[in-house]
């Protein structure tokens, strides 16, 4: 029940906002209502976290109601460690985004209500998608997230926004519809083998022929690979991120795109372990290409937002690599990566968004020397950037390293090539930072003021989490680990054992100090 309430709260908030009368100029009411609702949701999610038994494993806080009997579709929710991590990410990021979006200048100032309503809708649908344990319900929510994002991009973005919005929608719809074909197939197979059911637990017991499993897997994978985005299906992301407002970009890249990678774990690996294994060589190659390709393209961008989008392509490559390496280490890394990447990309998008709003341009070449007049902003950008390049001590490092270390045990070439990404990451972030922030102040940047209190308030939680999780990732990993073990045991590919295992001598490392 608590999960339903959690998902319903932002939706209800969105409806409330839609019903609120439009206000003249400053529109404070809508903003505060939105912020309030998102904070309530955050609190609720913490309650969920508290109720969640870390050690128990499996799906918890479940609820199940018959929804569409003929289809065997259930309104069935439940979270495991992976789901709750991403729900937490969603609920943490939404207030941050909303607070940061207070200052967004919208093309139509009358549409503030709609802007925040759509954001809350995204949050609610995303929570639902992360909590769904019924394939049909998941699919519905997965696809439904397109609509609010479509309107967020199309109504509130830059000058080329409608092109970007349409591209975003059609691209994702193609994937989603291929997944629909698979969903239909699941239904038919499920109905053939007894009563139709879309429950994850029932679907996992289905017998597939090898070819059927592979076809169905491909449908799911297509949707997730586009969403995630995996090379070469990524081209919608730079366009969308280049046109959307920073808040929209955060919701899109940090939250919604995670449904793609999340879906790979829960649905691709969960339903089609054999096919996932079959496809893993290709997926791994694509993921490695994504990593390097995204990074190289990020180096070549002049638009900051497109740059960040391409860094995300690179990072999603890591996440997917970790998932399809099928080791507990890499999979835990990928899951953690989703969370960390969400935070670091959010910080990057938001702080650059504030910068861009002040400068009136997103072109790197228009900036220069901003550090001098906006030191705090530059500091935040640096921290966010360093987290994006996976500096040890910041959260993404741990996840990236886990992914690589796990992958290394499975495939040395893949890990080796992927590791090149960390050099390229340094290049794209530092080149951007250098050209934007350092050097003498460039003409035209005089108006770039430093962050104000509200903006700092919105960014601080993200920065604190990025740093904090860099040193103390264990609270999250403790939640994730049991779920990962279940996934890996379901896939049936155990971790490759170390070739020369070392019995870790506890006394040497731990007790020695007390001597």
């Amino acid at each position, binding site marked *: 029940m608590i999960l339903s309430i959690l998902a319903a709260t932002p939706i209800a908030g969105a409806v409330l906002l839609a019903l609120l009368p439009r206000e003249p100029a400053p529109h404070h009411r809508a903003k505060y209502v939105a912020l309030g609702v998102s904070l309530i949701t955050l609190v609720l999610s913490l309650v969920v976290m508290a109720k969640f038994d870390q050690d128990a494993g499996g799906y918890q806080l479940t609820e199940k109601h*018959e*929804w*569409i*009997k*003929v*289809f065997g579709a259930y309104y069935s929710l439940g979270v495991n460690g992976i789901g709750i991590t991403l729900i937490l990410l969603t609920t943490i990021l939404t207030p941050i985004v909303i607070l940061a979006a207070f200052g967004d200048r919208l093309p*139509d100032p009358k549409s503030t209500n709609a802007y925040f309503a759509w954001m809350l809708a995204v949050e609610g649908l995303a929570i639902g998608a992360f909590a769904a344990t019924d394939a049909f319900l998941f*699919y*519905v*929510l*997965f*696809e*439904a997230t*397109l*609509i609010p994002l*479509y*309107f967020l991009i*199309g*109504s509130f973005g830059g000058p080329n*926004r*409608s092109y970007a*919005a*349409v591209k975003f*929608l*059609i691209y994702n*719809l*193609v994937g989603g*519809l*291929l997944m*629909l*074909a698979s*969903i*239909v*197939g699941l*239904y*038919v197979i499920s*109905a*053939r083998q007894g*009563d*139709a059911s879309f429950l994850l637990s029932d679907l996992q017991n289905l017998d597939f022929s090898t070819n059927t499993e592979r*076809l169905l897997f491909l449908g799911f994978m297509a949707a997730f690979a586009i969403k995630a985005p995996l090379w070469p299906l990524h081209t919608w992301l730079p366009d969308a991120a280049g046109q959307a407002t920073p808040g929209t970009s955060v919701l899109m890249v940090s939250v919604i795109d995670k449904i793609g990678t999340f879906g790979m774990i829960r649905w691709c690996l969960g339903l089609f372990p054999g096919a996932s294994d079959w496809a893993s060589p290709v997926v791994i190659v694509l993921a490695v290409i994504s990593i390097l390709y995204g990074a190289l393209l990020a180096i070549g961008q002049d638009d900051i937002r497109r740059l960040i989008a391409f860094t995300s392509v690179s990072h999603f490559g890591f996440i997917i690599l970790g998932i399809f390496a099928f080791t507990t280490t890499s999979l835990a890394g990928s899951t953690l990566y989703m969370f960390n990447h969400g935070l670091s990309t959010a910080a990057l998008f938001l702080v650059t968004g504030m910068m861009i709003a002040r400068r009136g341009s997103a072109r790197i070449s228009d900036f220069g020397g901003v550090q001098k007049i906006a030191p705090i902003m530059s500091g935040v950008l640096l921290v966010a950037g360093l987290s994006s390049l996976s500096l040890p001590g910041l959260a993404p490092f741990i996840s990236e390293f886990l992914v690589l270390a796990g992958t290394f045990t499975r495939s040395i070439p893949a890990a080796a090539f992927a590791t090149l990404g960390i050099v390229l990451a340094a290049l794209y972030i530092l080149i951007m930072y250098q050209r934007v922030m350092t050097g003498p102040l460039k003409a035209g940047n005089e108006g770039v003021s430093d962050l104000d209190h509200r903006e700092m308030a919105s960014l601080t939680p993200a920065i604190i989490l990025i740093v904090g999780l860099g040193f103390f990732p264990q609270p999250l990993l403790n939640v994730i680990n049991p779920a990962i073990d279940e996934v890996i045991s379901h896939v049936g590919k155990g971790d490759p054992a170390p070739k020369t295992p070392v019995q870790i001598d506890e006394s040497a490392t731990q007790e020695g100090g007390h001597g």
Partner: protein
Amino acid sequence: MIATFSSATDLPPISAPDIEYSLLAPVFIIAGVAVLGVIVEAFWPRSSRFLVQAGLAVVGIVAAFADTIWVFTDLDKLDGSRLARGQVAAEGALAVDGPGVFAWGILLIFGFLSMLLFAERRLEGGLSGFTGRAADAPGSASEAEAIKHRVEHTEVFPLALFALVGMMLFATSNDLLTMFVALEVLSLPLYLLCGLARRRRLMSQEAALKYFLLGAFSSVFFLYGIALTYGYAGSFRLSDIDVAVTNRTGGENMLLAATALMAVGLLFKIGAVPFHTWTPDVYQGAPTPVTAFMAAGTKAAAFLALLRVFFVAFGGSSWDWRPIIVAVAIITMFLGAVVSISQTDVKRMLAYSSIAHAGFLLVGFVGAYAGAKDSSRITSTSSILFYLTVYGVSSIGAFAVVTLVRDSGGETTHLSKWAGLGKTSPVLAGSFALFMLSFAGIPLTGGFIGKWTVFSAAWSGGFWWLVVIGVLVSALAAYFYVRVIVLMFFTEPVGEGPTVAVPSVLTTTVLAVAVIATLGLGIIPGPLLDLAQHAGAFVR
């Protein structure tokens, strides 16, 4: 009713036919109300005739609908190889079975909503959307006089009811002769109604002419198909044909040609490629309420007839016709989706969209999955019934929106004029966007569930690759639906932008019903799906 007579020559008396009036009451109610309307037309004073006609039509439809519900719940359950309900009635002319009565229900709903649109008088300054005096040449002095005298053609209501009764018969005909008569009963009034627009009358008349000529042309092919079928099977009764087809008594060629020719007539009515050419022109030219009625009703009735003919009569030769229909389905989906991309007129765009939807419906049809006795799996029939419901309601809603976006020359259907509609009237644009999303098959709308059901029927019938093609085409189709949304919401209005007429409660009701149904069938489709499943298979 028909008295037996004995003549001088000692011929045996002809026994009176046995007609199940209670079972057929919905049909008779509508027919009766239509005839009553004609009488009202003749005798009721002009001043209040419009209200009486409209009220009569609406009340008649509501009554018939109520009776339909009763008939549906009361259908006999037949034990056969698979679940079926109902019986053959009226000396075997009609099959009052689950799918048929379900179709009656949705046809009556479509009729009801369309009648509300027919009766809308707020938009033209107190006059209906139909021409005042069709006999006047467009632009002539006498037309101006007719407008001045505020005359109206109230015959549209009985005509629409005749069309409606034709549709109901078409959906339940159990022999080909009745089906042919029903086809004509449904077509003739529609030909006529198409030519009665108040604005842009030349186009309207042209639409009527095209619809009529092409409709007559196609129905001749249908008829020849009937003739050949008769030649092959020696009977018009679907069940007899089935026996003949299953036994394969020779004359294969004749059967195949008959199948093809009958398909032509039916595919014409549903607007499948290459028999779709009339659709855009007629949809654009016809008065918008008529277009709505046609789009929803004709398609539903024709699909039921298609299913009935091909599942019941030609079910035994399904391996012969399925490949061809698959090809038709693919071409139809593709052409409908692709061509609508470049359309600039809303009504034409909706017409091409209806072609694309015909393709999707055909996907469900070729699955030809009839279900198993103990399984609640979606069948081709139930999927199409559901899809038709959703599509019909949504498209009536969409056309209702079209009637409201106007400029000085009446409805302004050029897409460029719709730019910025979302800013000026978000509710209207929002509901149109909802219908578009439903057409595109986005989840949480009825259209999504509809697509889902037809695809699952196709997959159940073994056509998984057709499902893949189908989903790809629906992505293509989605492109132009979202383009409309872009236009309405993300584009600045050109000039002053469109004006949105304030509709009366009638159109508002239609819109509200359509929006609620589109959303409701997307979120809780269970009850309607259960009903569609409950309808079972066709009786023979």
